[in-house]
């Protein structure tokens, strides 16, 4: 098994676990970034394995997407922080049931 893939899997697991464990929306978003990068790593690794260039190009696309996501996400967090003065995701529970 390709060690890069193992690393990628670990990264992915860290990201998912962190997303559930962390109590700060920023940290959670960072975990998502970890997951995205795990995918990036996998793409690169696979591309190397397959001897293709395609996979490596995908990584750039994903990075762009991640950047856009970050922009949108931060904006949303800021709005919430302004209204609530908190970044704890558990405080956003007005709607439930």
């Amino acid at each position, binding site marked *: 098994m390709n060690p890069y893939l193992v690393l990628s899997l670990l990264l992915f697991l860290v990201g998912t676990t962190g997303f559930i*464990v962390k109590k700060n929306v920023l940290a959670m978003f960072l975990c998502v970034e970890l997951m995205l990068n795990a995918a990036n790593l996998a793409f690169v690794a696979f591309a190397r394995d397959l001897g293709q260039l395609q996979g490596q190009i995908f990584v750039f696309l994903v990075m762009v997407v991640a950047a856009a996501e970050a922009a949108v996400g931060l904006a949303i967090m800021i709005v919430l922080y302004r209204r609530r003065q908190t970044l704890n995701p558990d405080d956003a529970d007005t709607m*439930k049931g």
Partner: protein
Amino acid sequence: MMTELLWLLPLVPLAGAAATGLLGRRLPKRAVTLVAVGASGAAFVLALAAFMELLSLAPGDRRIEREFFTWIAAGDFTAQASLLLDPLSAVMTLVVTGVGFIIHIYSIGYMRAEDGYYRFFAYMNLFLFSMLLLVLAGNFLLMFVGWEGVGLCSYLLIGYDFHRPAAADAGKKAFVVNRIGDVGFILGVLLVFLTFGDLGFGRVFGKIASDPSRFPPEAGVGVLTSIALLLFVGATGKSAQIPLHVWLPDAMEGPTPVSALIHAATMVTAGVYMVVRCAPLFSRAPVALDVVLVVGLATALMAATIGLAQTDIKRVLAYSTVSQLGFMFMAAGAGAFSAGIFHLMTHAFFKALLFLGAGSVIHALSGEQDLRRMGGLRRRIPVTFWTMLVAALAISGIFPLAGFFSKDEILWAAWAGGHPTVWILGLLTAGLTALYMFRLIYLAFFGEPRHAEGVHPHESPRSMTGPLVALAILSAAGGFIGLPAWLGANRFARFLEPSLSLVHRGAVPHFSHALEFAFAALSVAVALAGIFAAHRIYLARPGGAGRIAARWGAIHRLLRDRYRVDEFYDRAVVRPLLGLSERTLWQRVDVGVIDRAVNGAGASILSLGGILRGMQNGLIRSYAAWILAGMAAVLLYLSLLRS
């Protein structure tokens, strides 16, 4: 002529009923009287004409059947609207219309002051219609129509005074108890259809008689016996035999003319008529005949004993009716079908007379029915007294009144048929009959007046006494048409013979006329003994009755309480059934099980919704955990559980 117009016979009273019932409320009483009594009179005339026409035929041809239309036809099941006039139905028709007409006339006076006059006569006419339909029906199903129809009229007429709860209850009880019998009847009819593929009397009995290999006289309980027993269940209901006798005494809540017509003379005898009509069938079912015999005897005896201890004049007569009906069934059970019909006819005369007389007494005493508050009426209402005396003697079986001939024939048939026990108990019952009947006569007409202050007994109007006299004549002389063989020829039996030609008859032992005469003398002696005893107890020794009652307290109470059969039914059947329905079926099964299951299914889904609601806790991280869990499950499935 009449054979073509046979349909008119039931239809005339029906038209009378429709006219009085639908328009009567707006018509003056005279018009109602004219229509209703006229209709019954016309029916009587028609019946007479039919009878005469029948007589004009040779005995073998005395059977006129008319099919008017197919009433119900589905597949191989057909029931015709067919009428059958033969000697048996002709006799019944005459009795029904004759007594009916007399009682209609009587009712003019008796019901004069009633608001529901039109309603009463509408019901009475409807009753005549139903009864004629029952009697003239040419097949089982049409007979059932009449059968239920008379039940309905009985219900309506008992409940005529519907504002009195007792009357309302009695009406309902009569109908329901009758319905129980009717179920037996209809099941019997169904079995007839299944067995013979037909319902017409002529064809069914023809098949029985013509195919002895298929329908031999049965030693045990075969199909014929089953049919007979089922039909007999119907008869016990209609004719108030054990165990369905309980409704008839209560039925006395109806107006007295109703008691006379329906609950004494005609409707209650329908059971006897039906058994005799089915004689070809019954005669091949000895077990059923034995049942009929035993039930008849038991009923006769039981009712006679109860009659001894009743204080309501009409109830005494009601139990007397039950008892006499028992006699008729004894006759049928002993195979003496024509004797049963003979007694039916004479009984119709004298029992109607007794009831009308009782009505007259009650009328005279402004509604008093308790024998203990009567007495000494002999001179105040002489016509009533004398006519009732005739009837009492007749029912007691004193020679040469009508009851003597008919009852004696029954007792003789029991003996001759090889049932000595039945004969002895029958004789005893005859004695008891005389006893309770003269108890009534003595208590009502003799001794000191015991009625309340302010009541001035007076003789009834002529429209009421006229019928009394007419019936008294019939009661006195009616027996002569059926003179026993040792006094001449039994013309009644011979006349009925064509209707009973298909009856299966075993070997009849022959007895000498002298023996028969001796038996007759014995039964008169027993009756006289009964009258004498009544005289001793109720007239000669004041307070004698009280002493006997005190001495035999338990038995007296048992008799007075009518063997507590009603109470037994109430506890054994009515209450358990209501309890079962209310508590078990409705509350427990319907509400407790089915609805709870239905609502529970709903509730469990709602609670599932509640659980989901709880899981939807609004926390992002727990949502993510759900996604992860789902993902884990999917991956697990794909990696491990995949086969």
